[in-house]
């Protein structure tokens, strides 16, 4: 079992100026499932491939179990990787695919067979061991890719969007199975996804990347309730947090003319921060429809069954601003209704540079 550590690791692709991964510092504990999440092009795959040894590390270093592996080729790192398109060897059967790494490592044939059979049992692949990958469904291929990784019993699992080729229902089902499997095997895992729901549901901790720069690493709950900056606040959570640009006028912040209330510590922190333009974030579940408050008109009602999200068009600082409000139970609201929105709960305030203002 293993710990993984990135130390100021950077990757600059040849012919580009801006690092795809910029001075990444990250500690991953033994047995942890760490999820790297971020929008497309944020450098998640690059960071993972640096750990795999598939991408050259231009600056900094990467450690597995306190061994500097920065310059080691992939085969010397004792890692297993699951690719987005699974990368199964098309000419080999499922069994051969799963046993391939063991064969390379000159593991005796009977031991190989036992280990492949064991992995196949765990993943429910026993009936398919003699099939070629092209004769499997997408979900089965995904399992074979998983099987190929677990057969090896490696130091670290690396997974690059392993569920993104599955349909929505199977994806949700597989993600819980995968998280369960990881917990049972206890193998340190780095998991890449662009889907923040996947990140939040699977990760022991989640690392948010943007533009090659690590924004925040925290447990899902912390990430949700205390985003360190405006980017993380907007990226994590579905539907997204309402984020509004606000001007500080004589010491108070207001949404659509309604002054916001803060406890004294927060108020003084806001006062102490520089710059007059800030942003305020409030999650849909902290807004309610009520008889007084911010006036607006309902434009869209998203009915989800147990709850619904009501989009309310308001006027904020002289321009249109949509506020998304969670309405629990069966909503009575329809498009065109005139409503009022009240704020009940955590407000996130971000300074001009996007950093969270803390007490």
């Amino acid at each position, binding site marked *: 079992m293993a710990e993984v550590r990135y130390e100021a690791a950077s990757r600059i692709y040849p012919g580009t100026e801006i690092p795809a991964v910029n001075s990444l510092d990250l500690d991953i504990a033994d047995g942890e499932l760490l999820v790297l999440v971020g929008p497309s092009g944020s450098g998640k795959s690059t960071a993972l491939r640096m750990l795999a040894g598939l991408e050259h590390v231009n600056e900094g270093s990467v450690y597995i179990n306190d061994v500097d592996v920065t310059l080691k080729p992939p085969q010397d790192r004792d890692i297993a990787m699951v690719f987005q398109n699974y990368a199964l060897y098309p000419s080999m059967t499922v069994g051969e695919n799963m046993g391939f790494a063991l064969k*390379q490592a000159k593991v005796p044939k009977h031991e190989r067979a036992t280990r492949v059979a064991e992995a196949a049992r765990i993943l429910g692949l026993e009936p398919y061991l003699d099939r070629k990958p092209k004769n499997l469904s997408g979900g089965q291929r995904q399992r074979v890719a998983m099987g190929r990784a677990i057969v090896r019993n490696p130091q670290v699992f690396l997974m690059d969007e392993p569920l993104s080729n599955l349909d929505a229902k199977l994806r949700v089902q597989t993600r819980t199975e995968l998280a369960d499997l990881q917990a049972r095997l206890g193998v340190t895992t780095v998991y890449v996804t662009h889907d923040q729901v996947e990140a939040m549901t699977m990760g022991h901790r989640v690392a948010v990347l943007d533009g090659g720069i690590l924004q925040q690493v925290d447990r899902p709950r912390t990430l949700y309730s205390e985003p360190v900056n405006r980017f993380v606040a907007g990226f994590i959570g579905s539907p997204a947090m309402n984020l509004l640009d606000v001007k500080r006028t004589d010491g108070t912040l207001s949404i659509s003319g309604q002054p916001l209330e803060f406890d004294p510590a927060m108020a003084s922190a806001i006062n102490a921060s520089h710059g007059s333009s800030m942003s305020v974030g409030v999650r849909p579940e902290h807004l309610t429809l009520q008889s007084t408050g911010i006036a607006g008109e309902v434009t869209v009602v998203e009915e989800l069954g147990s709850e619904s999200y009501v989009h309310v068009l308001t006027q904020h600082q002289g321009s249109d601003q949509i506020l998304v409000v969670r309405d629990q139970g069966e909503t009575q609201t329809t498009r065109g209704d005139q409503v009022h929105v009240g704020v009940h709960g955590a407000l996130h305030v971000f300074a001009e540079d996007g950093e969270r203002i803390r007490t």
Partner: protein
Amino acid sequence: MASLTRNPFTRAPKSEPILGQNRIVAHFLAFLTWIIGLLFFFPLFWLVLNGFKEESVANASPVLFFDPTLDRFSEVTESNSGLLSFTEAFGNSFWIVLISTVLVMVLAVPAAYALAIRPMRMWRDVLFFFISTKFLPIVGAIMPLWIIARDLDLLGTRTVLVILYTAMNLPLAVWMLRSFFAEVPKELIEAAQIDGCSLMGQIRQVILPIVAPGLAATALLCVIFAWNEFFLAVQLNPTGASTIPVWVNSQQKFQGQFLAGLSAASVLATLPVVIAGWVAQKRMIRGLAMGAIK
């Protein structure tokens, strides 16, 4: 509700019907295709027919019905009037084609691997260099080739043709194989690397099984081109160590007035290529199509 039960007498049509004006156009095009196909096929058909005729019949005005005979085939294969016998020429062709094609593949596979999977700087220039060697008309190069062959004492040997056919087919093979190798998903090679596979292992166990149809298509083209090559053979090796095309040509010289005999010789020269093409048709088309995607 009646519409829910399917009429048992309706069947799915064999092919989608073409409607209106397009139908006439489609029929006309099909007709035209047949005509053009037959036009192309006719000379070959005539050649094959002639091979089975008596000389007197072949030289008379064309008839469709005649008593077929295999005599012309046995005559040309047993004839010693040319520079070399049929069996000699066939054996020479066989070995020259086989060895040159094996050499081409052995040299082209690593080159194509490097160009497709680990491209160095300026790989495009390298690729262009390969194909540019085919720009020079071979008649322009024959003089220096002849002099070099003479000085190396290779004139009239099988070796000179093996070397030249290897050189002749190498650019084509590298070019084709590169596009097949480029089809191999990058992740497969990376997966093999992570699975602890050595470089040779990656090529042998992962890449080659995928590009096998492409390899077959390439090798077959090399075989066909080498088998058919005439100019170099007749210039550098017009003697007893030469190949089938030279043998056919020498039959022409000695049997000029014998149309049927010559036809039989030509059929014998064409047969192996036609058979090879027939056998490998499916694989070849798959291979060529595979390369065409990239």
